[in-house]
């Protein structure tokens, strides 16, 4: 089918990588099924990438995806009819599949590639290295398309109208919040509602806070439960979140509304007249839920969710991403993983929208819009990059007890009690 960008035409693209991949792979007549969480726009975008793979190899790739992916892939894999490649948003789920022996390890070259080309390469390797069914660790996945979560969205003009500056440190951020309250405004919009997944936005807050009050090592220990959930360090992070979310003066609608406000509706306060809030901490995907016609970079913009200047923990960045794993080994599946190591596979999507990559080998000039590039820069400038903790924890915690706990916490329950409940659930999982 049509290729979005004609090979060889736009010099910003690394066409050489495409040509060499094409030269080395011929998979005519083979088919590959890919299942993933992307539907709608993302699906269409990913399909433009797939088109290049198909053009290069002659293979036929069938991507089917969308909501309910986690359930679907689990059922399909368990029932013995897995897709060739699964695109998994939660490394925790990938680890679980690996442990059940449902994944095929990737070639060791991929590990080398990651270490050499990805920013903070080792951490990406670690994120996709899991023990298999027999307990031996191996690299099972390749991260492709990541999101940055440590972002605060705001309306530059509202800031201008009120004379506020973008804060550079957590201390500044808190001072700004006080200032806004003093001026009669409300600094934050926070919404945790998400239907069946209500609570997840709070986990992002807490993770961001973990990275801002504790060391990255503590963070890693926490994710693996070596640092217990009810450890004072964790409780402190939760209370950091509480300092924002449980402060009636700081959140639009008051603390009581936090848990029930839908996360998709929360940012709308930024654009109301008069604005109901000035800032909104949320990941890079949130502009899709801004009011229609909102132009990012003009009507809305973001800044890095800053770290405490006083704590010397650097500029930690919380992120998320999708990991490609081979659920049904075949030459085509292996070739597709290979394809994802080429710069061109990243650049095609970069040049459009909604795509960030930690791959340093790509030409960042290709980014489709300046905002993306700015986010990419946050990613590349990170002194610490950590993956979304709840996605790494076991599903029962990361997509269960943690969510529920955060909802309870924002409803007024004591942080220590919430943490200990979560830890209790975790204990039963062993």
């Amino acid at each position, binding site marked *: 089918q049509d290729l979005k960008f004609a090979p060889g035409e736009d010099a910003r693209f690394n066409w050489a990588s495409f040509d060499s991949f094409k030269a080395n792979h011929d998979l005519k007549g083979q088919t590959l099924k890919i299942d993933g969480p992307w539907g709608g726009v993302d699906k269409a975008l990913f399909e433009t990438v797939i088109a290049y793979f198909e053009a290069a190899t002659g293979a036929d790739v069938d991507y089917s995806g969308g909501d309910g992916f986690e359930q679907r892939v689990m059922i399909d894999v368990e029932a013995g009819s897995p897709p060739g490649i699964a695109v998994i948003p939660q490394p925790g789920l990938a680890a679980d599949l690996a442990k059940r022996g449902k994944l095929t390890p990737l070639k060791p070259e991929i590990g080398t590639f990651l270490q050499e080309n990805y920013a903070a390469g080792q951490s990406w390797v670690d994120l996709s290295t899991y023990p298999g069914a027999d307990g031996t660790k191996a690299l099972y996945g390749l991260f492709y398309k990541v999101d940055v979560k440590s972002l605060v969205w705001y309306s530059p003009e509202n800031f201008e109208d009120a004379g506020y500056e973008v804060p550079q440190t957590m201390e500044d951020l808190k001072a700004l919040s006080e200032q806004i309250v003093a001026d009669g405004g409300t600094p934050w919009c926070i919404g945790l509602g998400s*239907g069946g*997944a209500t609570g997840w936005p709070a986990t992002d807050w807490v993770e961001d806070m973990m990275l801002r009050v504790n060391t990255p090592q503590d963070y890693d220990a926490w994710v693996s439960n070596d640092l217990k959930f009810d450890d004072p360090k964790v409780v402190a992070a939760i209370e950091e979140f509480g300092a924002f979310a449980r402060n009636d003066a700081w959140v639009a*609608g008051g603390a009581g509304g936090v*848990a029930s406000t839908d996360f998709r509706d929360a940012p709308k306060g930024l654009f109301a007249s008069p604005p109901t809030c000035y800032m909104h901490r949320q990941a890079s995907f949130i502009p899709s839920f801004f009011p229609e016609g909102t132009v990012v970079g003009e009507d809305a913009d973001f800044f890095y969710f800053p770290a405490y200047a006083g704590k010397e923990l650097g500029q930690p960045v919380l992120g998320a991403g999708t990991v490609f794993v081979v659920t049904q080994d075949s030459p085509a599946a292996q070739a597709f993983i290979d394809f994802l190591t080429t710069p061109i596979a990243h650049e095609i999507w970069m040049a459009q929208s909604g795509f960030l990559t930690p791959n340093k080998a790509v030409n960042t000039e290709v980014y489709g819009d300046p905002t993306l590039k700015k986010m990419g820069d946050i990613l590349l400038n990170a002194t610490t990059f950590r993956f979304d903790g709840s996605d790494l924890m076991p599903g*029962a915690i990361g997509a269960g007890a943690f969510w529920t706990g955060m909802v309870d916490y924002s409803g007024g329950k004591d942080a220590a009690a919430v943490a200990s409940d979560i830890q209790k659930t975790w204990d*039963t999982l062993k």
Partner: protein
Amino acid sequence: MEQLFMASATIVIGVFGCVAYFFLSNLALDSIYPPRGPDAGRNITRAGAIRPWLFLLPALILLCAYLVYPLFVSIWLSFHDATGDSFVGTDNYTWLLNDLKFRESMKNNLLWLLVVPAASTFFGLIAAALTDRIGWGNFAKAMIFMPMAISFVGAAVIWKFIYDYRGDGQTEVGVLNAIWVALGGTPQTWLTIEPSNSFLLMVVLVWIQTGFAMVILSAALRGIPEETIEAAVLDGASPLQIFTKIKVPQIWGTIAVVWTTITITVLKVFDIVLAMTNGQWGTQVLANLMFDWMFRGNDTGRASAVALIIMLMVTPIMVWNIRNARKEMR
């Protein structure tokens, strides 16, 4: 056009395959034991012993494959760990008994079982009684039946919209809050207020199931002999007394069937809770707990244990139905 043709072809093949089975198997039975000729009597008796099973066979196969087999798998899984690999004895059940969420779910489920079948049947009965008496009854019926045509998830969305909360200072877009404010209250985050939030969720299921109850009960009401009602009129009973003392007692049997069916729906329903609160704020129910452990916890062992508890809760209904079936057969 081609797709349309293919679709109709698949439909025709599917349905006719089914018809063909019954037809051909009966034909086969009749040719093995022909109901004619010298041995006709014996043949017919023999065929008569086989034929019920011929009729039941597809149903039994489907039931075994789709319900009994998974049931046994579940029992087996409930004694195994998350991946179903190693035997863990009754661990899953002991975990269950100590789990706070499980206790909460049990408590809520009992509430649901008390409220939803009763309320749905009650409203269904009222709706049936009222709509049978007026000219535009069929239209009214269709309107009350309409929620049945909406998926559970769709219904959950509709109601979430009604319970919506925006916080003070903003205009409320949820009807409940709008009414509440009009009555002088301050907006509430309805879905987070325990324990009334559970009831707000039940309202959704009642809203849906009333149509079902109404359709079935209205047929039953029409079957009541007119004379008993006229006798009551002559006896001086008011319309309300006629309804409660004469009509309702006479359709008790149908009410019981409706009640049973809704009870079972209640035990199985998870979509509504999942979509509206996901069991948070103390609204967890068993079916959603199971769904949680199945697809979030990826723990088939625990999910199965919860499922078996759900099945256990239906035992009283089963016993009652067995008794009824026995009674019918004299």
